């Protein structure tokens, strides 16, 4: 009964094996198909060729990955901090919440395809429009996650705190905020996957550098191998960010990993 082991200790790698196997076999089939059919690399380059191009163009790719990382992380940091600050305001002022929420819902229905060129038009080819677009795409899922999380607080815990004489502020800090953390991390993992895509799309619409620009130029010069190289990098980037949030969640929500004894 003393200190039971955490639920998923060490199991991560072993449970990942089926996923790794299926990805590897997909690449093998792809490679074999290209070799056997003799299809032109201008139509469908083999994985080995994509890899080769990645190595050959590593300077170019690296140079263009940095701005994408920068836009993703800055935009994401912006949206998470604004969503967090706003969620607190909304939690303390339900009337403001009812007034503003429809606006946030509308902000989600705006098609990125239409909004991105406008934002680039207004803010130029620098980093600013990318940050704003990433923030726009990820803001609402984060805000909803937090607001729902506050609402999930156990009413019995709130009644207990009130009986202790807790103010609304103390109630928020000791009960509502911790109750929202699992929701917060669920929102974080969903929106981090949107974030990279939004950054690349914003670059694609207009930028000086970035993975979106690599894709645009490679497409225009009929280089599907380079397009795919950029795609590989963006996938890896998303996976790394996803893993980072999962790790952060494991640390912050340690109490959820303890074994149940009852």
């Amino acid at each position, binding site marked *: 009964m003393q200190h039971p082991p955490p639920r998923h200790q060490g199991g991560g790698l072993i449970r990942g094996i089926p996923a790794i196997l299926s990805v590897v076999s997909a690449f093998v089939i792809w490679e074999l198909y290209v070799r056997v059919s003799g299809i032109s690399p201008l139509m469908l380059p083999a994985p080995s060729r994509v890899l080769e191009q990645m190595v050959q163009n590593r300077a170019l790719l690296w140079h263009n990955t940095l701005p994408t990382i920068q836009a993703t992380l800055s935009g994401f940091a912006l949206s998470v901090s604004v969503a967090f600050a706003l969620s607190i305001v909304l939690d303390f002022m339900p009337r403001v919440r009812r007034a503003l929420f429809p606006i946030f819902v509308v902000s989600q229905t705006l098609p990125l395809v239409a909004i991105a060129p406008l934002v680039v038009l207004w803010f130029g080819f620098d980093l600013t429009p990318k940050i704003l677009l990433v923030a726009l795409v990820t803001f609402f899922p984060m805000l909803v996650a937090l607001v729902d999380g506050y609402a999930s607080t156990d009413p019995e815990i709130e*009644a*207990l705190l009130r009986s*202790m004489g807790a103010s609304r502020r103390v109630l928020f800090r000791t009960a509502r905020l911790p109750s929202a953390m699992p929701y917060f991390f669920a929102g974080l993992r969903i929106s981090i996957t949107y974030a990279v895509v939004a950054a690349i799309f914003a670059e694609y619409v207009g930028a000086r550098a970035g993975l979106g620009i690599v894709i645009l130029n490679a497409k225009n010069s009929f280089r599907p191998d380079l397009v795919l190289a950029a795609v590989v990098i963006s996938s890896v980037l998303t996976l790394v960010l996803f893993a980072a949030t999962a790790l952060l969640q494991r640390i912050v929500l340690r*109490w959820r990993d*303890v*074994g149940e004894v*009852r």
Partner: protein
Amino acid sequence: MTALAMQGVGITLGGTVVLDDITLHVAEGEFVSILGPSGAGKSTIFRLLTGALRHDRGMVTAGGRPLDQGEPGFAFMPQRDALMPWRRILDNLTLGLEVQGMARREARARVLPLLSAFGLAGFERHYPAQLSGGMRQRAALLRTLVQGRPVQLLDEPFGALDALTRTQMQAWFEDRWREARWTTLLVTHDVREAVALSDRIYVLSRRPARVIAEIPVPAPRPRLGRAPGPDAHALEAQLVDILLTQTGDQT
């Protein structure tokens, strides 16, 4: 002195008269139980005393003053244990003291010496999910009592436990109570528990709740841990008879 008094208290919730006429009092150092059928409005009385609801009719005084003037001085144990799953047991236990503004270090110093009497020694760093039901219940009790409030409001503290654990916990609690003599108002629908622990018992009707009987329990303490006398059996039978008139067509 009277620690708590309710005089003709009534409340209507969503068009339903939940409490009709509640008149009761608890003297300092006294152990009083409210016994009533399920859904009678027992928890509602506590929600009213802890400020979660306001009564429409009647008068509530705590320590001689009306309820809404100043600190009522109640420590409340909700029907479910309401331990915070994200706080370790020690941090759950200090919650009330911290809300009162006590520094965490001082609050811990207050709680730590009490752990062994509550069977929680060695578990202070555990999370609630790692404790058995009985331990969680003891933790919730300690969290209530350590606040040092004049009156303890306990809503079915042993209701969620299996029969064996419940009997053990009641005997254990009687021992603790005989040492400390907390002024206590206990809500229960367990007749044996009310007879074993109380100085006086109020019986509620079914909803809309009124006090339909007030019964003193003169038997000497300790009562648990030995065979109950014939008086206790007679009293239990009497209470069951009263309660049976109150079951039936309630919704």
